[in-house]
């Protein structure tokens, strides 16, 4: 009895703490997004005297010739394209890396691990992209996101691949399957849980990425949602309500994604990164 009580009170404290630690900042953002500039500048949790959320949204969306809409389009496109390439490329690479074991294997692992550790060198990357005429293009930024996200995804896939028995491959080969048919019709569908993990973690990462678009995808036509935040910081310098409205709006897509994929996340992680 005593034990149950203490367990119950620990849980109550945890829930209470979660409210203070995680809900208050969120509440603060939502509240500020509903205020007028004057009240927003007070930075407090007072209830707004009048609700401005809708007019704030309208003002933020219309700012800079509807930059935010363009940014949502760019960010979505960038995220989806990067994800598709990353999933296909990384799962293919991980398949061979996990299944094969010869002289080249340690070297390949070394290269992948280095990618996880080494900070990307920005100026030379700009230079290379520029030489390839990819600087400031959607293709360019997608390739950058794919290349920089690759080590993590390859490790996730490789870890999960280890849980798929080789007997499946052998059976398929006996049935006359070639490498590509084996991979795309049998192995790839089995990777679903880890693919879900990749989708959630990388989609959120790419959608929220600020530094790479800043460097490799500049220009107001190219704006991504994170760059609107950055652009609006100086423009709305005394209008915290608008800045917070922007924060609120750009947090919605990752949130939806998370709600959708929430349950699969842990499953994919289990055999993925842990054993990587």
């Amino acid at each position: 009895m005593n034990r149950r009580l203490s367990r119950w009170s620990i849980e109550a404290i945890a829930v209470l703490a979660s409210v203070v630690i995680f809900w208050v900042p969120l509440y603060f953002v939502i509240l500020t997004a509903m205020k007028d500039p004057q009240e927003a500048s007070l930075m407090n949790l007072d209830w707004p005297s009048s609700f401005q959320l809708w007019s704030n949204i309208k003002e933020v969306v219309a700012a800079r010739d509807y930059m935010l809409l363009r940014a949502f389009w760019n960010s979505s496109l960038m995220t989806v394209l990067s994800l598709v390439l990353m999933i296909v490329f990384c799962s293919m690479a991980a398949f061979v890396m996990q299944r094969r074991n010869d002289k080249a294997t340690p070297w390949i692992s070394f290269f992948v691990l280095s990618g996880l550790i080494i900070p990307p060198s920005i100026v030379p990357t700009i230079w290379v992209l520029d030489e390839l005429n990819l600087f400031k293009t959607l293709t360019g930024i997608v390739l950058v996101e794919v290349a920089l996200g690759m080590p993590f995804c390859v490790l996730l896939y490789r870890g999960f691949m280890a849980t798929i028995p080789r007997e499946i491959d052998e059976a398929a080969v006996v049935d006359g399957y070639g490498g590509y048919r084996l991979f795309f019709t049998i192995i790839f569908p089995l990777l679903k849980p880890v693919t879900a993990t990749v989708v959630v973690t990388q989609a959120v990462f790419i959608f929220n990425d600020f530094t790479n678009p800043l460097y490799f995808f500049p220009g107001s036509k190219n704006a991504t949602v994170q760059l609107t935040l950055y652009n609006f910081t100086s423009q709305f310098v005394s209008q915290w309500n608008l800045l917070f409205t922007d924060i609120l709006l750009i947090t919605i897509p990752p949130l939806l994604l998370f709600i959708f994929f929430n349950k699969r996340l842990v499953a994919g992680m289990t055999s993925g990164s842990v054993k990587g």
Partner: protein
Amino acid sequence: MSKIFKRIYTYQFLLPAAIVYLVIFVVPTGLSFFFSLTRWTLSDWELIGFDNFVTFFKEPSLSIGFRNTFIFAAVTCLAKVAGGLLLGVFLTSKIRSRNYLRSIVFFPTLVSTIAVGIVFSMMMHPTTGLLNTTLAWLGFEGPDWLGDTRIALLSVAFVDVWRGIGFATVIYIAGILAIPAEYSEALQIDGGNAWNKFWSIIVPLSRPATNSVIILSFIGGLRSFDLIWAMTRGGPGFATDVIASIIYKQYQGGFYGLATAGNVILFIFVTALVFPLSRYLNRTEVDL
């Protein structure tokens, strides 16, 4: 391996990934060694030997930068390991609010770093910020979280932990769930309590998760830039400068060669810390 499997597991599978990776990551990294020795305007370069490195090492904030980078990485990493482990244990136990808590802890990971930085620097405002007005209401005088050079870095580290702990927790949840139930059953038969279970089963057997969290968050901490930049821009003065922000400032100044030299230094610094660490962790890992 038989010949047929060599054909099945053909290296063609590696090709698309390898090309992108080589061109966008490996080649620029290789080039950075060359360009770090130049005075460089992107269109034009002039070899100047190791001058950039000499200049970079003379950079007044660099010693602070090295120290801050290490402190920031170590503090956030430890906090994420400890916090992630405790939350992981708690969130795999039989509690009613489990799903709610799992989701809410993971939630900050979804919000962009810049947004988090903006929100928290407002909440940490010394006089009107939420944190200090609350403290004042409770009768305390709160510090200047981001203005006091002694605690500014820790304040940013706190926000980084706030944002990143969800990810560490998920890894731990996965790791703890992967521990076979026989172990705790055996322990129960031996009459062990929850405390014994934590120390003699969960801690050692979630070691792979611990290693992942340590490596990922330590590397992340060493390379960390956007949160620090969004919250303090390396200030006040040079108090929260890390190597990455010093590099960025050289880049802003248009000193591309110098910035690239900084990149090489960061590369060496990170590698020198992470490779031994990862080797050590792998060697001491307990096999299930």
